[in-house]
């Protein structure tokens, strides 16, 4: 099977396309997904191929996008509802948190909600405060919904396909900064080969092996961690990079296994530091790995501030590979 470098955007498009071919209950809805060809071009060509029945432009009505997807899923369709950016999912937070995530529970298993919310996420490019969030942990706070955050094309492909096939609601967050990034993806033409690429819900992945420190990350944090690991290697420090891929469920077994080997950990995320991914992983490590801990757990996150427009101070607020290197050097 040929393996080609593919942009993450294209891998997501391919996954969605294949799932729509595979199951006619799968349909797409969201702002500008049809005629405009998708704000991030993920649904490019879908309208022409699948028609208006399955590729639905919505008004700027996030509350309804969030809730209509729940109803349609309860009734037996498999909606893939897109929030143009994850910032706008805040307007749908109630539908996501109170209904997508809880309908099954409060009717004691009577219904299932097989939907996927796709949302473009992340900070940077002077998008300013209200358009600059990577708030995946907020959604992962709530039991009843899964949260997936791929860091490359191959994972995005396999994770989205799994998410669409799963009978539970999934929030699928796509880092805007990673959309154009090419990485290897096999040209799987038949279904069996495609299924081999599925990524199980809640399964993390070691992106780089190392012995001296564990870097735990997801999405864009994986990029910064890998860059940092290369820089650290030049100083003789071998970092292991754990890409959790899913914020819920969390593959802590993978983190523990790595930590038992390295006894040191830096957690890397794009989002804000308070009540965060980093807080959660650090808490779990100290509860369960106390005997293996040789140094304080470090966290690299964004500055605790809304993001400004002006370029220099915006960059100052953002995490980057150098900040990861610095954090590692404090504990190794």
């Amino acid at each position, binding site marked *: 099977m040929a393996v080609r470098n593919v942009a993450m955007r294209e891998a997501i498009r391919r996954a969605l396309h294949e799932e729509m071919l595979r199951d006619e209950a799968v349909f797409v809805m969201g702002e500008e997904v049809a*005629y405009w060809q998708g704000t991030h071009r993920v649904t490019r060509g879908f309208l022409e191929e699948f028609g208006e029945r399955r590729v639905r*432009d919505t008004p700027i009505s996030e509350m309804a996008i969030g809730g209509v997807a729940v109803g349609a899923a309860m009734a037996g369709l498999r909606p893939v509802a897109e929030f143009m950016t994850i910032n706008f999912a805040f307007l749908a937070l109630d539908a996501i948190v109170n209904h997508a995530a809880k309908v099954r529970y409060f009717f004691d298993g009577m219904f299932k909600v097989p939907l996927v919310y796709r949302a473009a996420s992340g900070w940077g490019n002077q998008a300013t405060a209200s358009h600059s969030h990577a708030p995946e942990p907020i959604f992962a706070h709530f039991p009843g919904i899964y949260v997936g955050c791929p860091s490359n094309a191959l994972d995005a492909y396999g994770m989205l396909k799994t998410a669409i096939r799963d009978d539970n609601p999934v929030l699928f967050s796509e880092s805007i900064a990673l959309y154009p990034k090419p990485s290897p993806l096999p040209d799987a033409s038949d279904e069996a080969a495609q299924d081999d690429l599925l990524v199980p819900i809640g399964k993390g992945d070691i992106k780089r092996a190392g012995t001296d420190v564990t870097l735990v990350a997801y999405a864009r944090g994986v990029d910064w961690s890998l860059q940092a690991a290369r820089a650290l290697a030049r100083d003789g420090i071998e970092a292991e990079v754990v890409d959790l891929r899913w914020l819920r469920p969390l593959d802590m077994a993978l983190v523990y296994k790595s930590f038992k080997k390295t006894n040191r950990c830096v957690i890397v995320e794009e989002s804000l530091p308070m009540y965060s991914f980093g807080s959660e992983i650090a808490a779990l490590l100290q509860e369960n790995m106390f005997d293996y801990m040789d140094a304080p757990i470090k966290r690299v*996150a964004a500055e605790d*501030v809304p993001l400004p*427009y002006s370029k220099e101070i915006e960059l100052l607020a953002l995490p980057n590979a150098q900040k990861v290197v610095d954090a590692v050097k404090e504990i190794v």
Partner: protein
Amino acid sequence: MPSPSKDMLLDWYRQMALIREFEETCHQLYLQKRITGVYLHLYSGHEASGVGSMAALRKSDHVITAYRDHGIALILGMDANAVMAEMMGKKTGGSGGKGGSMHLASAAHNFWGGYAIVGGHLPLAAGIALEARYRGKDDVTMTYVGDGATNNGYFHESLNMSAIWDLPVIWIIENNGYGMGTEVERASGQTELHRKAAAYGIKDFGRVDAQDALAVYEVASQAVAYARAHGPAVIEHITYRYRGHGVSDKQYDSRDDMSAELRQWMDEREPLKILRDRIQAQFGDVSETLSAHEESARQIVAQSVEFAEASDLPRGRDALLSNTYVGSPLVYKTSDSIGAGSD
């Protein structure tokens, strides 16, 4: 309503020429990467909508809008230097470089700002109007909202609340035909957007040709008088965006039907030309004054670019963190165990 004087009309032309020059300059600066970022939504084509309607306000009235806010700021008299500096994220910008193109505001002008979440400013408008009602003042809040935003929950909840509390808001729906790439007809069940007022029992002032500043002014004056005395009003402005949704919108380059539509609006419904013709029909040849206004717009905008480019960027941690809170914040740092407030 007094019919506008010659001086007033000439001043409207001055404002419209300034906006057009400012916006087209922003467009060029963005192409040259002298303005950066991903969002820049221009008011070119909309000039008469803002100028004609705000002419019906008095100084103590309030104004709020969405991200397409440069024109609104300039009409209110915000200094072009401060507006341009904000485009470039400079310390001297109206919002200190923190807000950028989408977040201009000026407390001194009762301009409560531009907001980037579609519909998000609408309840704020109702709240600003509530303060006037609460304190027995008869100031009104003029609120600009896009056609696309009228399909958002924020719109409906805000209009309804303004109705039950008799809040003095003039809800001006700027219908430019599209929300990004979606035509009104594909986004709204009710395509005569002003009729949405009926759902909440709000006084409906109907649809106005918003390329004609005088027509806009006439209806706005009635609506403002009504809002001062009674409560909310709705007006629908029919207008057009000359530069697409924003800088990322390539439809007008890539689609013949869109560029033909744009050309038609520019040829037949150009707001500056319509105003010029109106003035000249009533007052004879004023071309010299209008040319002088155009020339002064060029100078003001050129000067604003110079000013902005010569200004400093905000730099350093203090600039980053300032004004997160009133008072000095206890900033949280991941490297601290509790926060910067502890030793």
